[in-house]
């Protein structure tokens, strides 16, 4: 079989010169982690049962999930290139991960509570009820590990975890993959670093 036959065997259809996988058309792609959907071929029955069961359970309360949404959009806001974390379904993804990796549960629940207690002391209300300026003041205290005050250390640890989960969730969503510019996962031919890139980096040939 040559490469052309390989691509045919994959069930790929040519569409305007671009090759798209039938099974992965944007229409069918699901946003958000709660949509576990149909079992993919190659996923085992027990894996699929576990995924479905986790998706049906609820860990975070409505208040916690709403707070996660506000924080996630502070971490990844919409800009001219793409939408925000909540646009990409990040809170639903974090909800799933808290059940998938139970060691996240206490740091997340406790971290959210820590944040609300801090805000209650400073501003007389929980984080969600604070105005935007107050929310950002609070986040500024925990978003910069190197300059955060020692008494903020627990908040820093919580924010580090939430930042990683938010970025993971956003940049692995369909919107985020497009934003970050990953253009692979397509059948083709790899013939080494493109000539203009070789030039720009001072390499003389494809083998350096």
């Amino acid at each position, binding site marked *: 079989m040559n490469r052309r036959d390989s691509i045919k065997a994959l069930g790929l259809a040519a569409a305007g010169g671009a090759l798209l996988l039938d099974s992965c058309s944007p229409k069918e792609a699901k946003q958000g982690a709660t949509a576990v959907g149909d079992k993919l071929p190659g996923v085992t029955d027990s894996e699929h049962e576990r995924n479905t069961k986790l998706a049906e359970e609820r860990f975070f309360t409505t208040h916690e999930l709403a707070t996660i949404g506000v924080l996630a959009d502070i971490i990844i806001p919409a800009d001219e290139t793409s939408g925000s974390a909540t646009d990409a379904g990040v809170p639903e993804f974090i909800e799933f991960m808290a059940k998938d990796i139970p060691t996240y549960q206490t740091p997340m629940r406790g971290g959210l509570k820590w944040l609300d207690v801090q805000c209650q002391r400073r501003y007389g209300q929980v984080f969600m009820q604070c105005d935007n300026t107050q929310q950002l003041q609070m986040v500024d205290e925990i978003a910069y590990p190197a300059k955060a005050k020692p008494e903020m250390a627990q908040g820093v640890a919580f924010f580090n975890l939430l930042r990683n989960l938010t*970025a993971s969730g956003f940049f692995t969503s369909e919107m985020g*993959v497009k934003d970050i510019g990953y253009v*692979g996962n397509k*059948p083709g031919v790899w013939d080494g670093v493109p000539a203009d890139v070789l030039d720009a980096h001072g390499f003389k040939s494809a083998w350096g």
Partner: protein
Amino acid sequence: MISYQIKTNPTVYDAIVVGSGAGGGMAGYVLANAGLNVLMLEAGPFFDPAKDALQMRWPWESPRRGASTIRPFGDFDAAYGGWELEGEPYTHAAGTSFDWFRARMLGGRTNHWGRISLRMGPDDFKPTDGVTDEWPITYDEVKPYYDRIDRMIGIYGTVEGIRNEPDGIFLKPPKPRLNELYIRRGAERAGVPVIAGRGSVLTEALPGVEGRGTCFYCGQCGRSCRVYGDFSSSSCLVMPAMKTGNLTVIDNAMVREVLTNDEGQATGVSYVDTRDLQEHEVRGKLVILGASACESARLMLNSKSAAHPGGLGNSSGLVGRYLHDSTGASAGGFLPQLLDRKRYNEDGVGSVHIYSPWWADNQKLDFPRGYHIEYGGGMRMPSYGFTDWVANVNHLVPAKDGGQREQGGYGAALKDDYRRFYGASVGMAGRGTALARYDNYCEIDPTRVDKYGIPVLRFHYKWANEEVAQAKHMQETFREILHEMGAIVASPMPGPETSYGLEAPGKIIHEGGTTRMGDNPKKSVLNKWGQAHDCKNVFVVDAGPFVQQGDKNLTWTILALSMRTADYILEQRNKLNIG
């Protein structure tokens, strides 16, 4: 009502092969093609990469975005199993560690492996270091089998003429990615050679081989290949062997014991169907074990009889002894030269594009043998956790406007950092020779059984000074290479408190040595053909027969030795010496 009735298959097979990975698959393939009636038993389900691969899936098609919660290498990886299997435990002697990776599926671990296909060299079979043991065979005796496998399965690489890194019959190698060009430049300045990778991926059509597609460069060999463009035992050996009509595969069959007669000869095996727990017995003239080094040793130790009181083929007491994995340690950083890099598809192949074969002079070093280095990085498909490092290092380079960034942060500036740093990481990992030692071993735990009632393994494994010294050398080398290529390394070099980042035994998934071959039946389990000294119709074809690995990932040698054993079986049958 539960009845304990054993179902007995009336057929007497010419050979029963236990396990369908590289070793079992190759033995089954050769024997079935020679016309023998072969039965293959696999503990896991049937797996066909054409149907079951999660190749070309996007991260959002996994609810955990490919995280490693269920499968150790992530949701899309083609291994059913891992270091822990539900209901199939193993134990450790106090103060020792070993992590045992098992893939329960047709083709075993060959569905997800890195396809890095290195020959052991003349000095690996006959070491000259005065520390490690020699094999009863030489490179020249194995070379014809390596050659046949190169032609039959396909491997890319470049002819280099390095004495202990023998060349094969190569397809064209994939060209380096951009980060790999920087790595090569840095490594050469650090005195470390870098050559084209050697991987079992069809970068071009393989003459005389039908039914396999050519690589289309998705970089996802670890998910197994729907067009059979890389080597998996399932796609390249077992399924083609089934097409001869001579190989029958029973899946979900966990072998309990090798059955023997009063003279101590094997007569077949017993197994349990893992779905309905029905017990079965099958008869065969030969029994060939390819269940993986530790699983085959476990099976032999669990097959006790009057003729084999210490376990089948274990009069030497050495079954389970000399267990050894590869050493492994790694380091990484990022290249400021690659920030804000141009986007294009650099998926390439799913095996390595470049690597460093062992280069140094051991006379100047405090450990025998050596290691090779594998490299990674680049604009890979996003998956769970792939951005975690960015917020730790975003203060280490000036911002786009030349100003100073604070570590961490949030908002538009952070969002842009994730884009900026994407594809700028580099990583490297050493894979080296761990010493095969009598004192590192697995045995039957006298008190524990798995969910099928089969006694489980207990491991005894400790690293020694040689492995730790090697890991230290790896870390120093990695730092030099990273420095020479202009990379920024955010993490401090691991020190003696972590054995220099040396991975726990078993983590590299290169375990072997548990049924070592040799000429002296008191000092080895198998003869140089992989045949049990104590039981002439039992053979082992996984990594158990390895006397001492080199730093060469072992699959290509498992394939070569299994093919050689299968040839020997055919020759002995013709002489009427066996089965």
